[in-house]
């Protein structure tokens, strides 16, 4: 996979866990998002670093199966659209 994904370093977010969901305040944009698993974990894995989907799967401890990679790609699309993850 060619694309690399990154997120702001950990200080760039403030997270509050709410019963299985997470409210995440993104300081740079001033916006708040409600996230369901695995979005917070993906952001944590990408914080201050750059990973491909393969690298992200490894960081999350999941197998790089085609299904998993497709699911991660869908999650990354969502997070890029929300402005929480950047695609290089």
């Amino acid at each position, binding site marked *: 996979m060619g694309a690399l994904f990154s997120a702001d370093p*950990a200080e760039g*977010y*403030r*997270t509050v*866990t709410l019963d299985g969901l*997470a409210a995440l305040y993104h300081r740079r944009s001033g*916006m*708040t*998002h*409600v*996230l*369901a*698993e*695995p*979005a*917070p*974990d993906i*952001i*944590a*894995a990408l*914080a201050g670093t750059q990973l491909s989907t393969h690298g992200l799967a490894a960081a*999350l*401890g*999941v197998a790089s199966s085609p299904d*998993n990679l*497709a*699911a*991660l*790609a*869908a*999650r990354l699309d*969502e*997070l890029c*659209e*929300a402005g*929480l993850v950047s695609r290089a």
Partner: protein
Amino acid sequence: MTEPTNDQSQPNLSRRRALQLGAVGAATVVSIRPALAQTAGSILNCEIPVPGPAGAGQNIALDGSLVPPGTAGSFTGSYRPFKGEEVKRALKGGTLPGTSYEQSQAYINYIRRLQQGQSGFTCYASLQMPR
């Protein structure tokens, strides 16, 4: 996120069940956008009379202060109040509708001097809010 703290450095994999990645078509991010569309309508329709009832019959000097009618260089008050939208545009460098450049400057300076308790102050203050 199963950790209750702000610790974002590494997901704690050993304590947790397998991560649910979700289906391709599922949604895991909901962005909260402030409901400004509705409030913006009411703010921009609010009115600022120039001058307010307390200044009725007085003129507006170029610096926005109230002066007796007939004072040289002053303007009579506007026959109608201005809408928030109109004032917002004028604050950005336009002129108030139906006024000359100097007259508009006088009115804008009057509006800028409004204090709490004066008619139109709340409307003017709302225009100052970001976005």
